[in-house]
C-alpha cells in the first residue's frame, strides 16, 4: 500500500519531489565526499611522511656552520635518534630552464639537493626512494601540476645540461606554503654546480620520542646552535602538507552543512504544505481510528524513500567526483592504501544524513497530534491558523495596489511557511556576499596595512648586506626619489618566561619614514622600544607596555612593546625596532622607495632591476599580488563559485516554493478567478510574495554578511596574522549587482513556478 501511495504522490508532484531530491543528494554527496577526502588525506599523508622519514625537527641556516658542534650536540642529546646536515643549493630562478620554461618569474626559492642517506628522502611518484644518476634531474611535483615541464625534456641549470628524469615528492617542501622547492641531482652533478648558487643548510633531526619535541627545541635554542633561518617541526610539516586540501575539505564541510540545512528547509516546507493539503484526509484517518503512528508511517515512508533515493544518488555522485578532488592528494602525497575504509566512512556519513532526515520528518510530523479530527472533517483546514497582521487590512490600504497588498498580506499571514524560504534566501545572500567582500578586501590596495608594509612605491630586497650601501648611494642621488628608508631584518635571541631562548626576526631601521597602521600603540621610536606583529604578541603573551628581554650584541637588553600591528608576511611572526646592532648577520635588507612621480614606478623598477642584479626590485602592488597572488585568485574563484551556487539555490528553492504554493493555493486561486481576477493579477500577487520575502532576505542576508560574515572572515584572516579586520565592501557589486542578480533569479523562477496558475480550472476546484 505504501508503495502505491508514494508512487501516486511522486507522480502528482514531480518538480517538487525532484527538487527536494536534488538537495538531499547534493547534501549526501558533499558529506560523503568530505568523509572520503578526510580519510584519504590523512592516510596518504601518513604514508608519505612515513616513507620519506620526514625530519622531526629542521632548522634552516644560512651562513657559517660548525658541523662538529652540531654533531656533538646530536650525540649528547638523549632523544636524538638520527641527525644530518643537508645542503640546499639555492639558485636564482632565471638560471633554471626546464624545457622551454625559465623559472625566472617563479616566486619559489628553487634549489638543488642530493638524495639523503638517513632520512628526509625525496620520493618518486610511486613512493620509492629515488636513485638519481649523473645528468638526471628530478623536478618537484608542483612543476608537474603547473605543467612547466615533462619527463624527458632538457633542463639547463646555469648552463649545464640535464635531462628531466622524473618528478619528486618532498615531504618537507611539497606544500605551496613552503617557500622553498628542492630539485634532486646526483652527487657528482651537485659538486659541479655547487659554486653557482648560495648554500643553505638544513639541519635535520629524527627523535626517539617525538612527544618531547618542545624540550628538544628549547635545548637546541639554548645551546646557541646555528639558527639563521626558520625552524620547522614534524607537526608543522604535516599541517603544511595538509592545509590546501584541508581547506578544501573545510569548505566542502561548510557547504554541505549549508546544503543539508536547505534540504531540511525544503522538506519542512513541502511537508507542512502537504499536511495542510491532506488535512481532511488526516482528520478522517484519525476519526476512523488509525493511530497517529500509523498515519505518520505513510508520510515517513514517502520521505524515507525519497531520502534513500537521494542518498544512494549522492553516494554514486561522490564516488564519481572523488577522483577529481583526490587528484591533488594523489599527486602530492600518493595513493592511500585504505580506499575501502574511505568509502565505508563515506557511507557512514551518508547514513547519518539519511537518519537525520528521517528523524527530522518525524519531528515535523508531530504536528499530527494537534489536528482535531472533528475540525478537520468539518472545515477541511486547520482552524488554529491565526492570520497575522490583523491591522494590515485591505480596507485601510492606500499604499499598495490590491495585488501587491494581497501578496504581502499572504506572507504576513503565513509567516511560518515563508520563514522557510526566507532562511534559504538569507543563506543565499550570505554566501553570495561574504566571499565577494573577502575578495574585495584582500585585493584592495588598503589591504597592504595588514601586511606590515608602509605606503611606498617600490622595494629593493637583497640578502647581501655588503651591497646595500651601493643601493643607498645610488638612490640618495636619484632626483626622482622623494624619500627612502632602509630596513634590515636580523634574527635575535629572545628570553622567554621559562628562562629558555627563542629566535625572533626583527626589522631594524627608521619606521617613521613609511608608517604602518598599529592596531594598538605606536611605532618604536627609541632604542629600548619594539613593536610586535599580532601573532608574535599573542604567542609571547605581550601587550603594549610590557617588557621583553632580548640578547643584542651579546648582552641582555629589555625592550618595551610600543605597538602591535598586523602582518601576514613571514608567517605573521615579525617585529620592528630602531636600535643599532652591528653583531648579528642581516637576513635580508629592504630599501623602501617613494617616487615624486608615480607614473615612473614601472620604468624605475626595471631600471633598478638591471642595475642591482643581486637584488630583487619590485613594484609594491606587484609584490603584494605575488605574495598573496594565489590566495587572492583562489578567493576570487571561490567568490564567483559562490555567486553561482547562491543563484542556483535561489532559483531551485523559489521554483520549488512557487510550485508548492500554487498547488496548495488552488482553492484561493479559483476564488480569485471566479470573482474576476485575471491570471496576470494572480501571478502579480505571487511575484509580490516572492519579492517581499526576497527583499527581507537580502536585507537580513547582507546584514548578516557584514556582521557575522565579517567576524568569520576575520577569524580566517587573523590566522594569517591580520588583526582588527574590516571588510572593504564594493557597494556596487555587494549592494547593487548581487541583489539585482538575486531579484532576477527569483523573478525568473517565480515566472516559471507560477506558470501553472492559468491551467487551474475553476469548475474542478470549487465545490458548488
Amino acid at each position, binding site marked *: 500500500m505504501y508503495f502505491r501511495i508514494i508512487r501516486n504522490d511522486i507522480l502528482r508532484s514531480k518538480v517538487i519531489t525532484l527538487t527536494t531530491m536534488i538537495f538531499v543528494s547534493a547534501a549526501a554527496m558533499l558529506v560523503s565526499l568530505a568523509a572520503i577526502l578526510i580519510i584519504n588525506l590523512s592516510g596518504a599523508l601518513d604514508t608519505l611522511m612515513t616513507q620519506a622519514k620526514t625530519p622531526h625537527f629542521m632548522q634552516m641556516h644560512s651562513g657559517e656552520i660548525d658541523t662538529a658542534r652540531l654533531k656533538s650536540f646530536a650525540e649528547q642529546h638523549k632523544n636524538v635518534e638520527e641527525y644530518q646536515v643537508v645542503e640546499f643549493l639555492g639558485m636564482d630562478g632565471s638560471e633554471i630552464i626546464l624545457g622551454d620554461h625559465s623559472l625566472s618569474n617563479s616566486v619559489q626559492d628553487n634549489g638543488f639537493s642530493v638524495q639523503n642517506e638517513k632520512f628526509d628522502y625525496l620520493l618518486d611518484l610511486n613512493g620509492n626512494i629515488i636513485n638519481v644518476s649523473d645528468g638526471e634531474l628530478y623536478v618537484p611535483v608542483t612543476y608537474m601540476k603547473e605543467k612547466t615541464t615533462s619527463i624527458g625534456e632538457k633542463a639547463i641549470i646555469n648552463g649545464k645540461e640535464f635531462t628531466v628524469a622524473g618528478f619528486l615528492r618532498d615531504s618537507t617542501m611539497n606544500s605551496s606554503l613552503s617557500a622553498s622547492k628542492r630539485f634532486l641531482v646526483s652527487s657528482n652533478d651537485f659538486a659541479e654546480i655547487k659554486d653557482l648558487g648560495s648554500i643553505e643548510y638544513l639541519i635535520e633531526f629524527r627523535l626517539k620520542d617525538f612527544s618531547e619535541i618542545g624540550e628538544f627545541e628549547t635545548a637546541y635554542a639554548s645551546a646557541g646552535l646555528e639558527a639563521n633561518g626558520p625552524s620547522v617541526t614534524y607537526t608543522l610539516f604535516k599541517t603544511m602538507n595538509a592545509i590546501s586540501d584541508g581547506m578544501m575539505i573545510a569548505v566542502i564541510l561548510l557547504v554541505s552543512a549549508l546544503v543539508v540545512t536547505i534540504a531540511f528547509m525544503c522538506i519542512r516546507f513541502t511537508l507542512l504544505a502537504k499536511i495542510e493539503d491532506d488535512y481532511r484526509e488526516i482528520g478522517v484517518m484519525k476519526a476512523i481510528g488509525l493511530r497517529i503512528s500509523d498515519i505518520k508511517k505513510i508520510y515517513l515512508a514517502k520521505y524515507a524513500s525519497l531520502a534513500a533515493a537521494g542518498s544512494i544518488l549522492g553516494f554514486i555522485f561522490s564516488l564519481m567526483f572523488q577522483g577529481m578532488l583526490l587528484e591533488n592528494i594523489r599527486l602530492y602525497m600518493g595513493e592511500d592504501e585504505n580506499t575501502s575504509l574511505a568509502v565505508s566512512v563515506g557511507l557512514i556519513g551518508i547514513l547519518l544524513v539519511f537518519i537525520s532526515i528521517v528523524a527530522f520528518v518525524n519531528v515535523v510530523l508531530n504536528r499530527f497530534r494537534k489536528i482535531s479530527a472533528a475540525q478537520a472533517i468539518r472545515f477541511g483546514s486547520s482552524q488554529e491558523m491565526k492570520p497575522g497582521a490583523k491591522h494590515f487590512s485591505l480596507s485601510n490600504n492606500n499604499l499598495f495596489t490590491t495585488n501587491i497588498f494581497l501578496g504581502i498580506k499572504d506572507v504576513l499571514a503565513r509567516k511560518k511557511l515563508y520563514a522557510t524560504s526566507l532562511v534559504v534566501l538569507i543563506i543565499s545572500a550570505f554566501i553570495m556576499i561574504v566571499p565577494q567582500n573577502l575578495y574585495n578586501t584582500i585585493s584592495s590596495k588598503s589591504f597592504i596595512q595588514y601586511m606590515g608594509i608602509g605606503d611606498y612605491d617600490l622595494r629593493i630586497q637583497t640578502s647581501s648586506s655588503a651591497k646595500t650601501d651601493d643601493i643607498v648611494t645610488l638612490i640618495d642621488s636619484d632626483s626622482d626619489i622623494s624619500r627612502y628608508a632602509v630596513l634590515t631584518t636580523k634574527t635575535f635571541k629572545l628570553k622567554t618566561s621559562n628562562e629558555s631562548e627563542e629566535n625572533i626576526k626583527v626589522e631594524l631601521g627608521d619606521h617613521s619614514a613609511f608608517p604602518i597602521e598599529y592596531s594598538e600603540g605606536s611605532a618604536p621610536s627609541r632604542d629600548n622600544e619594539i613593536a610586535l606583529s599580532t601573532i608574535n604578541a599573542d604567542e609571547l603573551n605581550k601587550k603594549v607596555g610590557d617588557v621583553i628581554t632580548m640578547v643584542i650584541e651579546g648582552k641582555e637588553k629589555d625592550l618595551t612593546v610600543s605597538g602591535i600591528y598586523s602582518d601576514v608576511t613571514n608567517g605573521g611572526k615579525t617585529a620592528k625596532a630602531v636600535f643599532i646592532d652591528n653583531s648579528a648577520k642581516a637576513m635580508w635588507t629592504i630599501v623602501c622607495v617613494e617616487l615624486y612621480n608615480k607614473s615612473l614606478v614601472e620604468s624605475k623598477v626595471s631600471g633598478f632591476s638591471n642595475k642591482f642584479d643581486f637584488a630583487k626590485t619590485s613594484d609594491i602592488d606587484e609584490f603584494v599580488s605575488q605574495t598573496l597572488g594565489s590566495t587572492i585568485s583562489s578567493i576570487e574563484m571561490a567568490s564567483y563559485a559562490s555567486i553561482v551556487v547562491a543563484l542556483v539555490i535561489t532559483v531551485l528553492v523559489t521554483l520549488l516554493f512557487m510550485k508548492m504554493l500554487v498547488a496548495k493555493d488552488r*482553492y484561493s486561486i479559483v476564488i480569485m478567478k471566479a470573482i474576476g481576477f485575471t491570471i496576470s493579477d494572480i501571478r502579480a500577487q505571487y511575484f509580490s510574495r516572492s519579492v517581499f520575502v526576497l527583499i527581507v532576505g537580502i536585507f537580513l542576508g547582507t546584514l548578516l554578511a557584514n556582521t557575522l560574515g565579517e567576524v568569520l572572515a576575520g577569524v580566517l584572516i587573523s590566522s594569517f596574522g591580520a588583526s582588527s579586520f574590516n571588510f572593504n565592501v564594493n557597494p556596487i557589486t555587494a549592494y547593487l549587482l548581487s541583489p539585482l542578480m538575486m531579484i532576477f533569479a527569483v523573478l525568473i523562477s517565480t515566472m516559471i513556478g507560477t506558470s501553472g496558475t492559468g491551467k487551474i480550472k475553476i469548475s474542478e476546484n470549487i465545490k458548488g
Partner: protein
Amino acid sequence: MMKKMIIGKNIVKSYGNGDEQRNVLDGVSVEINEGEFVSVMGPSGSGKSTLMFSLSGMDGIDRGKIVFEGMDISAVGDNELSNIRRTKMGFVFQQPTMLKNLNILDNIILPSMRGNRKNTAKITEKARALMKRVGIAGLEKRDIIQVSGGQLQRAGICRALMNNPKIIFGDEPTGALNSKSAHEIMDIFSEINANGTACMLVTHDAKIAARTERIMFMRDGKIVSELKLPKFDGKDIDGRVETVTVKMRDIGI
C-alpha cells in the same frame, strides 16, 4: 418583451476522452432575460452546475455558442472573461469561498479593489451598507472562521453584489445551510432580484426552486422540461412547491 441577456446555443461539453468520453452538456440551448429569476434543477451529474460554469465563462465549452449582452463569450480570452465576471456577474457558491487570510470586510471588497484603490473609502462604505442590508453588520473585522455558515454565505452575497452585477449565479447557495438560514438567504435573493438584478440558481431543493419564476429541469446533459411560475410575492409558497414537485414527478426527476 424582456431583453435577452444570455443566449446559449447548442452547448456541448464533454469530459474524459476516447471510450470514456461523456457529454456533460449535450446540446443545451438556453436563454436568460434581464432581471429574470431562474433556477436549474436536476439530479446529481445532470450537468446543471456545468451549465452555470459555462454560461458564466468560468469553464470553456467544446461546441456551441454563448452570447452575453451581445458578446460571444465562448470566443474571448481569459482576461476579457475575468473582466466580465468582475464587472457584470456575481457568484455565490455552496461552500463559502473566502480567502482565509482576509477578514470578512476585505473579502467582500476584494472584487472591487482590483486597480481601484483610490476609491477604497467609497468601496468600504458600500460594503458596510450591503452588510447591514443582509444582516451581518458588525462582523467586518472578523476572520472567516469566526462566523457561522449562514453569516459567511451572506458575506458571499455581499461580495457578489459589490460591483452591481447584471446577474448573480448561485450554485446551491443554500445547500450547506439549515432551512431557517436557507429561507433567509432566499429572501435576500428575492430582494436582489426585485431590484432588477437577474439571478440564476442551481439547486435540487424544490423549496428553493419554487421561489424563482422559471425552472429548467436537466437530465443527462439536456434540458428536458421547463416550468414557468408567476413572480413570487411571498405568498402561497406551499402551493408553488407542490407545483414544482408534481412537475418533477411527471418528468421523472
